[in-house]
């Protein structure tokens, strides 16, 4: 009885989470342009998608910005974490608080303040401003996921490496870095998804003619969102799903061996 209730509960959660995505994927195969009518099964929106230069350019922009910004933020964030471990307690907690603020801050506030900053500095809006903004809001997420790992480290291993004649840099990359790696990776992934997701900050800091997927979809509101977007969203979802399955499968195999 109890386990049946549990199963139904889980099933409901999964249903609510995935019903919208399921609807979208079904609609992406609808030959008719309207959601109200089933015009037959068709791949035509997928074909149209790969012929639509604007959508593809927006997709390329989105991926490029997500990749660059999360990479740079990961490097900066990790270095910041290393620096913070060497700080006094008070200074450390102050710095930690400062880096947390952008995360708690509403996106729209961050977006508008960045826009005003760029205007007052006379920076031209374009890909560069989007990238800078994304790096800015990504850094706290990296710090948030690297810092706990840093605290778990046993400082003796690093000192032992030094005692055995390793240079500090060498000791860092050979001893500290491998222990930090899971934190760095999850920070990178979090930053990547944050950047991929972002609409509001991009909306305020983007330049003319530069669009990411989210801003591109938003401009289609007046005339209705084109079914090509359904197709693209389905493709992205399937890609992410396969990636997740692959990542989650491989450690299991190792353990079995």
């Amino acid at each position, binding site marked *: 009885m109890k386990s049946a209730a549990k199963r139904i509960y889980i099933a409901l959660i999964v249903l609510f989470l995935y019903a919208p995505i399921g609807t979208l994927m079904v609609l992406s195969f609808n030959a*008719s*342009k*309207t*959601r*109200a*009518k089933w015009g037959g099964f068709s791949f035509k929106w997928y074909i149209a998608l790969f012929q639509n*230069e*604007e959508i593809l350019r927006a997709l390329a922009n989105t991926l490029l910005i997500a990749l*660059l910004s999360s990479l*740079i933020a990961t*490097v*900066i964030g990790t270095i910041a974490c290393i620096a913070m471990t060497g700080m006094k307690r008070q200074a450390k907690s102050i710095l930690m608080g400062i880096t947390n603020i952008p995360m708690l801050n509403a996106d729209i506030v961050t977006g508008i303040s960045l*826009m005003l900053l*760029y*205007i007052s500095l006379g920076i*031209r*809006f*374009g*890909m*560069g401003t989007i*990238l*800078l903004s994304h790096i800015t809001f990504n850094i706290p997420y990296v710090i948030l996921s690297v810092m706990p790992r840093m605290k778990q480290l046993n400082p003796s291993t690093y000192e032992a490496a030094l005692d055995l004649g390793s*240079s*500090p*840099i060498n000791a860092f990359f050979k001893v500290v870095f491998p222990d930090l790696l899971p934190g760095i990776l999850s920070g990178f992934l979090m930053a990547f998804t944050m950047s991929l997701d972002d609409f509001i900050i991009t909306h305020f800091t983007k*330049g*003319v*003619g*530069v*669009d990411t997927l989210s801003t*591109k979809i*938003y*401009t*289609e*509101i*007046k*005339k*209705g969102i*084109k079914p090509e977007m359904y197709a693209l969203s389905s493709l992205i979802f399937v890609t992410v799903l396969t990636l997740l399955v692959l990542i989650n499968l491989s450690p299991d195999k190792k353990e079995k061996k």
Partner: protein
Amino acid sequence: MKMNQRFRLNSIFVLLALLTVISLTGCTSSVKGVNGQVIVYNWGEYIDPETIRMFEEESGIKVIYDEFETNESMYPKVESGAVAYDIACPSDYMISRMIENGMLSEIDYEKIPNAKKNIGAEYYDQAKGFDPENKYAIPYCWGTVGILYNQTMVDEPITRWEQLWDEKYADNILMQDSVRDAFMVSEMLNGFSMNTLDPAELEIAKESLIRQKPLVQAYVVDQVRDKMIGGESAIGVIYSGEAIYTQQENPDLVYVIPEEGTNVWIDCWVILKNAPNKENAEKFIDFMCRPDIALINFEYITYSTPNVAARDLIEDESVKNSEIAFPDLSQYDNLETYVYLGEDGDSLYNELWKEVKSY
């Protein structure tokens, strides 16, 4: 040892800085065309991308094209000056607001011969509602707001706004979820101007909307289209531009301009006051007013074009003479365009609309 370490750290920073600089400069420096560039700010999906390509090829001017989703989101972007746009395409009431705030530059019709030649005089007349001397705006797309109804779901033809208050159609009516459009319906019903600022009239209009509320199935924006095609509702308030498309999908649907009168909206090209490439902007607008180009855009957007010469080129007679796409404006004497109501007027409307929605 220590030197070595510092050197390595430094080189990491230098590399990082270089990477950032490269990515920044690589992206911000936009390629200019042989004859410079023009920066256009238009509604999303409001032009056939092919026509931009054709313009670039013919003129050697690089078009930097940017899109907005509402008049309200366009305005602060232009005003902030973060980007110096040359051309924008706002709607009627927003144009009057921009004129009032001195954001537009006067049109030199000599430089844009196609604008006077191809665009119908009746549309310039209609535009006088927000641009009294036709000094700033060149009509690009227009349409009416009307009633779309499903023949199989109503007892008699719908011809008046009044019928949206008929209890027979309870739970079968879709209203627009926007202040001006909702109040326009109610103001027309009561015989007021849709730009009225008279508190007594607005109070009556508000009462009417509250009276209608129990009959309304939903206040929606772009779902009217899909809901009407799917037969989920009998009557909906919709823009004429969407009506043709819905009829193609569901032949039972009929679009009417209500007898009490309605709103005519016009989206126009305007050149901004501080346009850095004014000459190119004029060339761009002139190109878009060419009949063949306007026809391509009409077929892509499917919103009515004010370009009479382009309409003559339409091959499909049923579209060319469509009462929906091209109603004879002279037949109606109660069509109005929205004008900017001023900040106080806007907040008064918003306040009343909030009362309706929360009633």
